[in-house]
């Protein structure tokens, strides 16, 4: 018993130390900085200062005034864009996982390799490739102009759609892997049993297949949603001024505006909102999905 305990402590202490220092450490620093006074040239003054949070709600200097809730708007918009990214990834990935799970085992492994293939190239390079595709004199516009379908180039680049497009492209593997693992575990005899008991295809899908694969869908959605909300690289390259996301604001606060405390406060609010959404999602939505069609 004692030896087992020691053994367990030995196994778990590296990860505990690592997370304790390198995960909770930075988090604590951000939390503390978010209530400190910004320094003149970056950094912080060690005085308690709550206007960082106030500024987000139009209460920057002790006087409530009419204001444009720009930060909250952008946060909300970022969440909408992340939501669309999740939905698009799911719609694209879900049928494919069924197809892959029916392949012979070797071809399945090959497909998994293909899914991870994009990771072998730098994200920045892949995003600049998207630039080449989407820009006014890019591949798509050249093609459409050449065929004569359009008279003037389409404005595809530097839009929110372009950002969502890019995020879907980057995030698809994170949706694929969890969804695939739950689809692969789905017992085919459940589908047969459902049909045997008189369910049509769509009934089987809603009442059996969807709830049975819900853990994978939920996992994939979380894995795609969270990095999408806070993403700043993709909107940086593909979004321009219109596609700005909350992650870009945080980035600007730290790098350009040199207002670390305000950036930290923004981060804390993002984290709180995202955590709340995820909590509601994982309790309500997943349960509802499991009971789809009950009534």
């Amino acid at each position, binding site marked *: 018993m004692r030896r087992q305990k020691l053994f367990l402590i030995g196994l778990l202490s590296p990860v505990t130390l690592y997370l304790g220092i390198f995960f909770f450490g930075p988090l604590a620093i951000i939390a503390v900085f978010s209530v400190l006074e910004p320094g003149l040239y970056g950094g912080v003054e060690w005085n308690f200062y709550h206007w960082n949070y106030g500024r987000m709600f139009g209460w920057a200097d002790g006087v409530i005034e009419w204001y444009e809730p720009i930060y909250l708007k952008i946060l909300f918009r970022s969440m909408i864009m992340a939501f669309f990214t999740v939905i698009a990834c799911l719609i694209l990935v879900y049928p494919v996982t069924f197809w892959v799970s029916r392949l012979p085992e070797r071809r399945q492994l090959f497909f998994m390799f293909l899914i991870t293939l994009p990771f072998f190239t730098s994200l920045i390079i892949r995003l600049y490739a998207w630039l080449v595709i989407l820009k006014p004199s890019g591949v798509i516009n050249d093609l459409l102009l050449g065929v004569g379908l359009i008279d003037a180039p389409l404005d595809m680049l530097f839009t929110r759609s372009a950002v969502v497009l890019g995020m879907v492209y980057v995030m698809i593997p994170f949706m694929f892997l969890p969804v695939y693992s739950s689809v692969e575990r789905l*017992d085919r*005899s*459940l589908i*047969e*049993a*459902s*049909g*045997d*008991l*008189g*369910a*049509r295809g769509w*009934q089987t899908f809603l*009442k*059996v297949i969807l*709830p*049975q694969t*819900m853990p994978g869908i939920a996992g994939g959605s979380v894995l795609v949603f969270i990095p999408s909300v806070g993403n700043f690289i993709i909107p940086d390259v593909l979004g321009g001024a219109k596609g700005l996301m909350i992650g870009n604001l945080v980035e600007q606060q730290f790098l350009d505006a040199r207002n670390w405390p305000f950036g930290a406060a923004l981060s804390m609010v993002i984290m709180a909102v995202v955590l709340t959404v995820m909590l509601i999602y994982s309790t309500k939505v997943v349960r509802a999905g*499991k009971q789809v*069609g*009950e*009534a």
Partner: protein
Amino acid sequence: MPILEIHEARRVYPTPEGGEVNALDGVSLNVDANEFVTLLGPSGCGKTTLLRSIAGFEELDDGAIILDGANMVGVPAFRRPVNTVFQSYALFSHMSVRRNVAYALEVAGIAKSERNTRADEMLDLVGLAGMGTRRPSQLSGGQRQRVALARALIARPKILLLDEPLSALDRQLRQQMQVELKNLQNEIGVSFVFVTHDQEEALTMSDRVVVMQSGQVQQIGTPREIYRRPATRFVAGFIGETNMIDVNLDGSGVANAGNGLEIQLRDDGQSGAATAVIRPSDLTLRPRNGAPNGAILGCVRQEVYLGFELHFLIDVAGGDDPWRVNAPDLGRDYAIGEDVALTYNPERVHLIFGAN
């Protein structure tokens, strides 16, 4: 009129090596109303393919499945008035037991109050009253089995198909479920088509047994017919232990196995090459001294004590393989090599003619 007729069902599967295998090679059979029919055979004999074809999970390449007068070829599974109990039970783990049982009613659009009432009735019937709110994962193997049964019966199918449903249960529970299944079938009056590779199970429960091998029906008959009058050597060997002896018949009522070994028959007049089938329990083992005329002589090669009976291997004079003999435990052991005699009732010697 039979409730189910299968005519010349054929199904060919490609093998991974590029060949073909006949899963169903011209199978015909009928199932009557309220009948318990078992499809029995070794794995790969086509029994499961046949069951899945009746359920609608597989299509036939050729042949007809006529269910209650309607041809089922091309009819999707969800429209067929049959239900299946799966080997793995295939319970929906995300639903309560009651919702599992009521599933067929739910997808048919029946009101919730009615389907809950009927689900509870079914749970009552299979001995799971009050378990409706549990999850399948909270039940034992035998209880899951009953849920699967209740779920498949709630829509009142014309035929219930059972795909080796007892194979996952331990021996004692399996024997108990065999009796319960048979009683349930009598009670509700639905035809059961039951797939198994366990011959004991087949004999215990069935009104009729269909013995299959290599996609073909070897024999259809009552358990007694199958056991006592096997149509082929395969059936004789697959159902229970047996002694099979190649013999020649000359019409005298005695089968000659060569080397002076002769077997008495119940009737005479037949002639030609045949296989004589004698069950181990139809042979009586006795000491050589005082053995009657016509007894088969041999000596003991092996004795196995099973408690309720003894199993012997007897080297028979003039025979090729040792004979199996089952004898009740009379408190006497035979020594290895001891001279013994075997007597039998000629009525119990069955003959199989033909090349099989």
